[in-house]
């Protein structure tokens, strides 16, 4: 087993185990910190998939932005003075059964489907290709996404303002 493979399986193990911690932990802060490791592990998987730009973007946006936002939200909405920020689950048996059925179905589908795959070569540069695709093929979704973000920004400003 080569070193690269060992690192891949370590990254995978960290990702999946911390995702399980996010879901099963009783403490909300523990869930948020486990989510940090899940997102970092997914960024590592992107590196193994030759997607360096996506990996860096994942670290910047998710870990640097959204996770900090979530922790701020937890600290602003809960009574931070109480030691245990517990959060409970409900209907774990039924939910677990449904999710197990879905997972088994997905896995059998994955191993049975005849995926189209070719031996790809490692791209020399990804950022240039992504930029060309964004500005030529996917220009309309790009603009729609920017308008969506602008509308969300204006809506947040409108909601948080005091009505006089």
């Amino acid at each position, binding site marked *: 087993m080569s070193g690269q493979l060992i690192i891949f399986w370590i990254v995978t193990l960290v990702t999946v185990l911390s995702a399980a911690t996010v879901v099963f932990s009783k403490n909300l802060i523990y869930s948020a910190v486990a989510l940090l490791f899940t997102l970092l592990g997914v960024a590592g998987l992107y590196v193994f998939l030759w997607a360096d730009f996506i990996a860096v973007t994942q670290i910047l946006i998710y870990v640097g932005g959204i996770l900090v936002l979530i922790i701020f939200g937890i600290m602003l909405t809960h009574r931070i003075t109480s030691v245990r920020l517990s959060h409970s689950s*409900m209907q774990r048996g039924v*939910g677990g059964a449904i999710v197990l059925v879905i997972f088994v179905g997905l896995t059998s589908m994955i191993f049975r489907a005849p995926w189209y795959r070719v031996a790809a070569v490692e791209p020399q540069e990804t950022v240039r290709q992504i930029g060309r*695709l964004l500005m030529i093929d996917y220009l309309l979704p790009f603009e729609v996404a920017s308008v969506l973000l602008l509308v969300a920004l204006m809506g947040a400003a409108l909601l948080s303002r005091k009505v006089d």
Partner: protein
Amino acid sequence: MVDLNTYLVIGALLFSLGLFGVITRRNGVAVLMGVELILNAANVNFVAFARFGGMDLSGHVFSLFVLWGWN
């Protein structure tokens, strides 16, 4: 070395865990964390297909849109 199926199974695992969080959690922030797991699973699948499908990098662009749309 690592096949396409491995990445797809990892994506399915992340998706299942996220769905479990969404349907069992009572707290809104915790449900949001489950949604994050689901979106990450979708992103892993996009990038895996872009890597093994022999296409151009459209999968990367799609995962970027997922990232931005969530932000």
